[in-house]
């Protein structure tokens, strides 16, 4: 009951934060003088193509870019009537991409899901790798197990992602016959979901997951190891030993529970850093995630596309922190009952 109330409360604050973030995103994108259309108009005028100018001016009116900034913002989020009444984020209209000359939703639609898929796979990879390795490294600290896993971890941290991607592609293709580039076989693109498509996607996911996840996993492993080492010195570990618990069970039941807190709290940070970190990887690997689209949009001041993608990343971050907050509350009674006297 208490958890539910807390989750509800967090949801409210999350929505408020999202509103604030949307304003920040919109105004920061609009900080440089002009916008995509005025740039285009200037370029067209300079080259004397007056026909295009009329079209651009029409678009400018169509998308209310000639109105004051605050009004533009309100129209964008859907809290103010535009030329065609209320039609913004709130109503599910994500705007028009000038660069691609398509509705934003058509450009990012499928990429959105693939982005979530790739990054969830990477997060899962991070946790699945970091948890056992971190615990093992701490339990066998200063032995070859510790040194080896640390060495591999640092290697993972230090190797640039795109380099790792290229190496893995080469060897993955050569020895395991793994596909190169993309998130599914080209002939399946645009096809409806089928077993073959799912299989193809999963096969294509292996290398990107590994590439995007390694550095995160290495960092997470080191953090977990350090936390565990701190916990292993605590008196309650001694108490558990004095009860006659076997070392493995003791490790799992007591220090690991304590060391898990920062581990869980990281979920929120992990998502956005992976999405922004995977932009370059996506370009190199040719993944159809929103990364490459974001890059283009930001370069050409394609404000609706860029704004939507940034807002989406912010939403993921907020969901991540909310999930980790609620999980922490479930995990740690001190947080759950912190205020109870």
């Amino acid at each position, binding site marked *: 009951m*208490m958890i539910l*109330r807390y989750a509800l*409360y967090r949801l409210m604050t999350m929505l408020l934060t999202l509103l604030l973030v949307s304003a920040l995103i919109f105004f920061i994108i609009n900080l440089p003088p002009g916008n995509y259309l005025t740039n285009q108009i200037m370029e067209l005028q300079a080259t004397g193509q007056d026909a295009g100018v009329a079209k651009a001016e029409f678009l400018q009116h169509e998308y209310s870019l000639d109105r004051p900034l605050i009004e533009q913002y309100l129209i964008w989020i859907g809290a103010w009537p535009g030329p065609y009444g209320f039609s913004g984020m709130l109503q599910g209209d994500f705007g028009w991409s000038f660069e691609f000359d398509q509705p934003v939703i058509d450009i990012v639609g499928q990429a959105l899901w693939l982005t979530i898929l790739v990054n969830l796979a990477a997060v899962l990879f991070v946790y699945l790798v970091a948890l056992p390795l971190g615990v093992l490294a701490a339990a066998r600290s200063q032995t070859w197990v510790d040194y080896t896993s640390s060495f591999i971890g640092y290697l993972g941290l230090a190797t640039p992602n795109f380099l790792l991607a290229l190496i893995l592609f080469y060897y993955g293709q050569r020895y395991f016959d793994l596909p190169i580039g993309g998130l599914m076989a080209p002939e399946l693109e645009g096809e409806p979901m089928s077993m073959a498509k799912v299989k193809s996607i999963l096969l294509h996911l292996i290398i990107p997951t590994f590439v995007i996840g390694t550095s995160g996993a290495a960092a997470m492993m080191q953090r977990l190891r350090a936390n565990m080492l701190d916990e292993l010195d*605590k*008196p*309650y570990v*001694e*108490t*558990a*030993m*004095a*009860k*006659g*618990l*076997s070392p493995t069970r003791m490790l799992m*039941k*007591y220090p690991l*529970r*304590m060391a898990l807190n920062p581990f869980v709290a990281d979920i929120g940070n992990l998502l956005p850093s992976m999405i922004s970190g995977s932009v370059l990887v996506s370009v190199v690997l040719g993944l159809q995630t929103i990364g490459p689209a974001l890059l283009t949009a930001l370069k050409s001041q394609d404000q609706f596309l860029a704004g939507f993608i940034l807002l989406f990343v912010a939403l993921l971050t907020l969901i991540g922190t909310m999930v980790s907050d609620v999980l922490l509350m479930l*995990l*740690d*009674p*001190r947080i759950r*009952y*912190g*205020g*109870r*006297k």
Partner: protein
Amino acid sequence: MTAFLEVQNLTIGFKAPEPIIENVSFSLEKGETLAIVGESGSGKTLSCRAILGILPKAAQIRSGKINVTLEGKCISLLDISEPKFRNIRGDCISMIFQEPMRSLSPLHKVGHQVAEVLELHRNCSKHQIKQDVLAQFVRVGFPDPERAYAAYPFEMSGGMLQRAMIAMAMIAKPDLLIADEPTTALDVTTQAQVLGLIKDLQTETGMAVILVTHDLGVVANMADQVVVMNKGRVMERGDAKLVLSSPAHPYTKKLFDAAPIIPEATEFVCPPPHDDLILDMQNISKTFQARSASPMKSAILIKAVCDVDLKLARGKTLAVVGESGSGKSTCARIALGAELPDKGGTVMFCAGTGETPIEVHSLSRANRSRFQKQAQMVFQDPFSSLSPRMQIIDTLTEPLDIHGVGTKSERKDRALEVLELVGLDGSMLRRYPHAFSGGQRQRLSIARALTLDPKLLVCDEPTSALDVSVQDQILDLLEEIRDHHGLSYLFISHDLAVVSRIADEVAVMRRGRIVEQAPPCTLFANPKHPYTRALIAAQPDPDINRPIDLNMVALGAGASDSWADAFRFDGNNIPPLMELEPGHMVRCHG
């Protein structure tokens, strides 16, 4: 016939060639209590862990034997395999640790942590185990065992947690209980109750107990056998009565001399006259807000201090005594202006005779800085109150630096001067705190407080983290400095023996109120209030013929309902402080 537990010539070392403990031998019969006495670093804890087989990884047992007789069979604990040892741990031999707060996992329910012992060592149903744990909880004195079972450690007080630890150690009915300073982290009244509990359980089950302690008073109350250890070696061992009544080894004698005791009744001393006050606290109350469970509900108000008046005469020592949570530290913080009292309370500070007193909580910035120069604090824990990353010289000159006193070389001279004043050597200026022992660090923190040449020193439990012999030296030092430099002390402590030595006047606080106030000789010779009596009764005395009177402790330290009518708090009807004889005030109905 071999003894139940036999430790022979045990030698344990770490990496260095010199062993940490060397040739330690002792033996113990069933139903007996063996006290291992020694100061920190004497190796007493290490010896105990060796018996339980939970030494730190780096420790090596170089030689010796540990034999224990379980179910008629003699087992050599140093030779059995780890899985077999695990069956013994917690079942036949169990241990209670020093800090109950840190020795229980904060994330697991207390009941589950206790039940785990039975889950490991007994084959019974979950339901049966829970019943056993609840029964044990009743046995160790939990008023509401079901609630205690479901509570998390952070929801309980230190004394209650130590009871849970005892329940955990006792639940499997072990043959040997090792208690490692089980009461050091507790208040005297709680300590008395916990010791009484261990004793009761021992008579009930006939187990053997090893009690590790540095407090000879505890030894006198508990032990049949005594082993005195120093620097890893046994100095003296034998029957408790013999060792305590006629200590043979000079080290044991030294420990005895250092042990603080409440003096026998002496002649009547007038309280210091209250005409030249350096500090005058009037009507001090302090209410704290605790965050409530949900943001919707209003905050919970906690009254930490209620209507306290304290007057400190110039050149004297006023001690405030009470258990944890009695509000004594809050009083100290208010006296220094670190905390604002509730409306209506005033704190007046008068730097010199005849000067106009200033009000501590409404000072201008410049006056505040001047006040801070004249009033300094000595903290409880010398290990955490000195910055580990600053050399001693920087720690000592920092206050001068902040107040812009003197040139760089003058500051250094002053640092040298105070260092020598507290009995340390000038060559230590460039060292870091970790290079000093506990007693030396407390000297350093006194030196730090003295650099600005203050008039008032607030000492918040300055000796409670120290060994007895060191404690004695620090008290000597504080007395000497006070008399030579005309300082006045506001001395916060929970230890009546310490207070009886240094104070000119003592105020006993309980739950935010002063219940009795008198000069120490009056207070100890003629305590009136049941709570004061409980405090005095709970103070362990290193005399085997004067055991702690547990009934008296329970009576006074319990809820105020158990007090005689004259002292009882009745809802909002709180008895006033009455002056029974000159300078002796007691909170009672007239």
